[in-house]
């Protein structure tokens, strides 16, 4: 079968930085092809070149045996290549319909198309791709992250004629079955899909072949049915990763209670009672939008409850601001999910980013320079496994994984005993995940407590010493360490009344 896309010796430099150095791969028509690689391996650059955001320095791309060199997103789309980007590219204050139909939101030649007709056309697109819960008239800014992600995907799906590129499409999707159905629908027409994801089990489920990138070069293409995870990890990082083990099996609810809530209510929450003990990693599982986000932001001091009480270290407190949350003994440090918008100070150095709590809480007159900051940040950086050479870098120039390490190191710098982490490993590579896991375990061994939400069940299973499941603003299940399994969490996450069998089928 002739290849739909053939890439030969593709290279890209950004100034002195070599992002891609010789990528060779081919994609067959109707195939779902995965790109695997650690953060910084060149996946995003490859996506950007194929989708016309940047141009390559050398090498060729041929589409159906004709050479192409897309120099803009529009041009790539004209060739039939559509991309759903990792960073959402929707325009927040426009309607869903306009976003889906962009860049031709109005089909009128002389006269703008009527609103009604735009909504109607968009509705047809939404129906075609089985999105039934989002109105084409709603404003994108009002949607949840998962809904926005689906709109982004629908837009790409509806434009893809030859190749669809999906860059971490499930990062914000709680449930992959919808996406996978749409991918099958698309590939049955002969459209190829390039699938980029950190989640290997997903890749195995949907993709036929995978190309592994390492340090900007392709390491080879494998048939996914023929290799096991170990082989893929070896290709990705150059050495075998240690087998995942369940640690912290024993429940450690004997420690003193550091954080406790009683009948906590807010817009989404309908009476949350929970206890967080010293020495415990408390996992929180749930489908997107069940109130977990609000719960975590409440702990971070970014939201106010409408009723109920929060006890921190035995005293009833109102967490009226993040500063208050940090100050109230034994201290709550919150790490939000949105790294770029709520986490990093992009143009400050990593050391400044990590050491900022040291200056934030005290007066203004302390003197500081780069050396003092690096010195202050060194210990926390070491605990999260951030290489010291990165400390002098501007954070905006670091990879996503390293940015996340910086944020966690900052949380450690605050000296807080309670860490509130919302999806701490979202979109980071395997190596960074392991560093984050060991930091979390070390932290609770020192007497701290962690409450964390994750969209990856395997992570909750692996890390939690106890796991809560939220559904519709309530805690519906409290699973002890020895009972935690992906099946159990998934079943509870679909609601208390949900038969376990159905959820399992959906998951497999």
């Amino acid at each position: 079968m002739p290849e739909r896309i053939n890439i030969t010796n593709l290279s890209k430099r950004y100034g002195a930085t070599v992002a891609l150095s010789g990528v060779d791969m081919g994609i067959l028509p109707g195939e779902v092809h995965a790109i695997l690689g650690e953060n910084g391996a060149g996946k995003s650059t490859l996506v950007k070149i194929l989708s016309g955001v940047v141009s390559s320095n050398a090498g060729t791309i041929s589409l159906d045996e004709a050479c192409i060199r897309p120099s803009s997103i529009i041009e790539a789309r004209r060739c039939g290549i559509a991309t759903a980007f990792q960073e959402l590219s929707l325009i927040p204050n426009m309607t869903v319909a306009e976003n889906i139909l962009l860049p031709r939101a109005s089909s009128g030649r002389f006269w703008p198309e009527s609103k009604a007709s735009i909504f109607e056309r968009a509705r047809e697109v939404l129906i075609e791709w089985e999105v039934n819960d989002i109105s084409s008239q709603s404003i994108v800014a009002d949607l949840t992250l998962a809904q926005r992600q689906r709109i982004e995907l629908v837009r790409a799906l509806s434009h893809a004629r030859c190749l669809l590129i999906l860059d971490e499409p499930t990062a914000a999707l709680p449930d992959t079955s919808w996406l996978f159905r749409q991918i099958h629908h698309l590939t049955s027409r002969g459209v190829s899909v390039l699938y980029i994801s950190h989640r290997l089990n997903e890749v195995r489920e949907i993709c036929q072949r995978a190309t592994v990138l390492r340090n900007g070069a392709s390491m080879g293409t494998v048939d996914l049915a023929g290799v096991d995870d170990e082989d893929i990890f070896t290709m990705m990082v150059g050495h075998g990763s240690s087998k995942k083990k369940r640690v912290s099996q024993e429940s450690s609810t004997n420690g003193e209670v550091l954080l406790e809530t009683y009948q906590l209510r807010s817009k989404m929450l309908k009476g949350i009672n929970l206890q967080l003990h010293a020495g415990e990693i408390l996992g929180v599982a749930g489908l997107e939008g069940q109130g977990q986000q609000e719960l975590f932001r409440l702990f971070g001091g970014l939201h106010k409850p409408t009723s109920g009480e929060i006890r921190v270290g035995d005293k009833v407190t109102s967490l009226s601001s993040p500063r208050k949350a940090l100050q109230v003994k034994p201290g709550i440090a919150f790490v939000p999910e949105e790294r770029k918008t709520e986490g990093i100070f992009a143009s400050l150095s990593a050391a400044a980013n990590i050491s900022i709590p040291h200056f934030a809480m005290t007066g203004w007159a302390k003197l500081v320079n780069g050396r003092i900051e690096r010195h202050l940040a060194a210990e926390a950086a070491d605990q999260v496994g951030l290489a010291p050479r990165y400390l002098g870098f501007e954070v905006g120039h670091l990879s996503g994984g390293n940015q996340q390490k910086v944020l966690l190191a900052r949380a450690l710098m605050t000296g807080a005993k309670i860490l509130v982490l919302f999806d701490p490993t979202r979109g980071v590579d395997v190596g960074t995940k392991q560093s984050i896991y060991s930091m979390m375990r070390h932290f609770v061994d020192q007497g701290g407590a962690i409450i964390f939400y994750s969209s990856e069940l395997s992570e909750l299973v692996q890390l939690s010493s106890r796991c809560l499941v939220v559904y519709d603003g309530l805690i519906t299940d409290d699973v002890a360490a020895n009972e935690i399994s992906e099946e159990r969490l998934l079943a509870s996450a679909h609601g208390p009344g949900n038969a376990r069998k159905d959820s399992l089928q959906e998951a497999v």
Partner: protein
Amino acid sequence: MNQSYSTADKQDTRQAQRFSSTSIAVLTIYSLVVLMIFGSRLVSPSLGGLSQLMTVLYLSSFLVICAFGQGLVIMVRGLDLSVASMITLGGVLSTTFMQGTNEGLYFIIPGILLISALVGGISGFGITRLSIPPFIMTMAMGLIVYSVCLGFTEGTPRGFPAPILNAFMQSKVFGVALPILLMLILIVIFTTLQSYSAFGRKLNAVGNNPDAANIAGITVKRMTISAYAISAACSALAGVLLAAYANGATLRMGDDYLLPSIAAVVVGGSSILGGRGNFLGTVGGALLLTTLSSMLSALGVGQGWKTVLEGVVILVALLMLREQVFASLQSMFKRSS
């Protein structure tokens, strides 16, 4: 193994570039200033010497002081359009309070700074607590302050600055005018405050990412308000000095400083969008603008053409400070070395 080391090396060079682009920006501005001063000898033999350098330094001290405050405000993603009015306020208050005597100077000057900081604080309050855009809030505050000055003085400010201030503006130590020395001391203090203090770091963080700063426990609103308060106090200080320099206040004395204060910050390499700034660059920007203006005056260029040329130079300086230009400059240096 070699592979992973080579990526690290690549990123290390990227770091080196980042560092030198800031310093190159500052160096470029200062070399431009030096070039212009010595180049002006070609224009007129009376220019281009040490005396012209001293004049430029003297005249730029007013702008340097206002531009520091403006730089802090721009750092926190704002803009202070009340600079001109605050200079007038500083000048009018000082001549009114001092009435040509040295009496009570030790509390009059701090008092003026305090009053103006309060006015700036009100602007900051409106911006942070009432969510009024900085543009509108400071413009309105500027108008109010100016109108109060107008009403209070009935059009012609009376009184004179303290004689000791007049003397201060005219004295020299080892051939260097005292205001220049004052400026140098202030530059040291301001640079420390902006780049080497906890206050500066927090302000930088707020400008960089207000939401993240809030989560990190920084009092974002208080920091923003203090930036506006400092800016207002700086402008008022410039006003006090200007009144002493001109031996009296006028209602329009601040007009020539509003746009240059913004231009000095931006030409100095700070981002107009906030979160990135460097006071030494701003000082360079202020020197550049003052040199240009004094050169054009010496040439006898009319006011209209002078403004046109100033605008052109600001644009050229901004274009030259773009990162791409740096990248190509750097690669040129690398090839030649």
